[in-house]
């Protein structure tokens, strides 16, 4: 294309918020905190049939410092809880959390001495995906919802300010 081509003289006007929202929406870097059966379903989400990369969120990082979306897939036991908290804290802002599966959301059917009754006792959660395990479509649905909300800037950066988990300040 010629530099002086008239087609280049097009400008897009937008609001800064919207530009940022658009950028965030299309460049989510998930970190998988996979502990149990739900993590196996996440493997399906990443494999070619469901293929999370179609939604611009495929750069799965296992280092929290490089990620902005934490997907907690699997049972979180009391023994695991401090680690989850540490990982969450290592992620830099802005960050979002998806809780995948009954165990992460509520302890699932492990209502016993070992299992945390929902990860929101420890860290704040933005989206809950039910199911034991949820089908891959359900996780993709949550991802699309998150992206939609990011586009429209629904997330208030201060939304978790008052959050106090069971492992905070003890």
């Amino acid at each position: 294309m010629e530099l002086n081509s008239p087609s280049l003289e097009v400008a897009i006007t937008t609001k800064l918020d919207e530009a940022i929202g658009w950028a965030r929406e299309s460049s989510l870097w998930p970190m998988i905190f996979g502990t149990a059966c739900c993590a196996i379903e996440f493997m399906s989400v990443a494999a070619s049939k469901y293929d999370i990369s179609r939604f611009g969120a495929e750069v799965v990082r296992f280092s929290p410092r490089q990620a902005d979306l934490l997907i907690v897939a699997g049972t979180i036991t009391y023994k695991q809880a401090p680690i989850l908290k540490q990982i969450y804290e290592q992620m830099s802002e802005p960050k979002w959390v998806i809780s995948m599966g009954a165990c992460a959301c509520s302890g699932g059917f492990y209502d016993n001495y070992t299992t945390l009754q929902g990860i929101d006792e420890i860290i704040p959660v933005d989206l809950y995906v039910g199911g034991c395990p949820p089908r891959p479509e359900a996780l993709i649905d949550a991802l699309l919802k998150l992206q939609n909300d990011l586009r429209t800037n629904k997330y208030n950066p201060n939304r978790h300010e008052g959050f106090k988990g069971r492992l905070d300040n003890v």
Partner: protein
Amino acid sequence: MSEIIKATSIELHSFIKTKYEEGFNYLLDITAIDYSEYVTANEEQFALVYILRHESFKEHIVIKTYLKKLEIETITDIFRGADWLEREVYDQYGIIFKKHPNLRRILNHKEFVGHPLRKSYPITKGQLLHEVDDLIEEMNNRLLSKNVVCKLESGTFSDCNKDLMFLNLGPSHPASHGTIRTYVALDGETIECAVSEIGYLHRGFEKSCENHTYNQIIPYTDRLNYCSAISNNISFVKTVEEMLGVEISERAQAIRVMLLELSRIEDHVVCLAAVLVDMGGLTNYWYMYNPREDIYDLLSKLTGARLTNSYMRVGGMTNDLYEGFEEDLKEVIKKVKYGVEQTLSLIKHNRIFHDRTQNVGVISAENALNYAMTGPNLRACGVAFDMRKDAPYYGYEKYEFDVVVGSVGDVYDRVMVRFGEIDESIKIIEQVMQNLPEGEVCVKDNSITLPKKEAVYTTIEGAMNQFKLTFEGVKVPIGEHYGSIEATNGELGFFIVSDGSGIPYKVKVKAPSFTAMSAYPEMVEGAQLADAILTLGSLNIIAGEMDR
């Protein structure tokens, strides 16, 4: 019911030693029973149970000893595999093993107070952990045994005489396969010492079993080895059926065999996919994982769920095969074969693959047996132990297949044994489908299986039957029994104590991943860090099954 041999606690060590010399040299499991709420009075509140297998692999014995005092001599000097098993009993029941080298909690965390499998411990009483164990003490003891540090007079440890770097692999690490933690001391890239910590996925399976009916436990068994849920279902219901003394129909047996083999394939493809990714061969992941999706499709059509199938019931299964199952299965097998073929064509003559896997992560047959390794991991060392041949059930003796064995016991052998087993499983599935017997899939016994839906909706007897069986559960006669099958990771067994009600008094899982993992630290010491990752992947440790 298993025949139980009794021994007194004082002579137990020597008794086991004699048994060992008689050829019972393979330790399956150690567990305890808390009789405080049992229906009949027992000699003492606590008893210990040891399950041993004979070197011919054909038979096993169950040894029981009542404890007057909550302590007993360790048998770690006879079986190295006893180390973690005894720690588990200590953790869950508070029984002390004298002279044990490292008697610490294993499944529960270090701030945990009490012993959860005692009947007096309330099932829902959770306890928060605030700070993760640093494992320094354990590492120091390990370094001490290798003369890298010495013990000072003050009781503390000296500085290392080598320049070591300490590193945590896991529990949240991409190559830690879920939630396994290994703390390593590195001399350059070489692992000088390693200690593993497990229990991050301890979900209280055994305690939960004590307040659910037998059929309610089936969904819990799905989540032991969640890569091959149906084989856990089968192992559990088979043990219960043995206690009930019922024989399932030939058709049900054949379907179970077919599904066991399909689960084996399902599990092996995901293990192989993962181990090849760990090696950097990402392409193989797509080839190996895609057939798994096809198996999911088939299983969801049959059972309603992709992963956690809960398809078996005591006395049979939820429903018969659907019309057209056979054609679907054939398609799936074709795709599995294609995936395996493509992957093998990428790695079979691949120099990198051979260099990375051969003579890496070696364990000798003798050590593997002493650690009670089982399944493909044991067979990779050249030991042809396979329950399907050595103690056949469900008519496995009728089918023609080979036991695949390795020779060195390295990563290469473990990978290749699994590839070989996929082929053998396909052979078995084809033979089953050729001669699938006709008939019902559930036993006809009102006290075991639910009545037909028409009967429930139209007759009072049917409704009552459904109600009683659902609420009270299948009543299993009083007794103690160990039953097992060859699951994907090896011998998967259940030791069940029944008090005659519809709820088991105690359930213990003999989990193949647990013993395999206990051998892992020793296997990686002296190896390169990157090889430790491959070794872990090739052992196919499934945290759900290991930690329960």
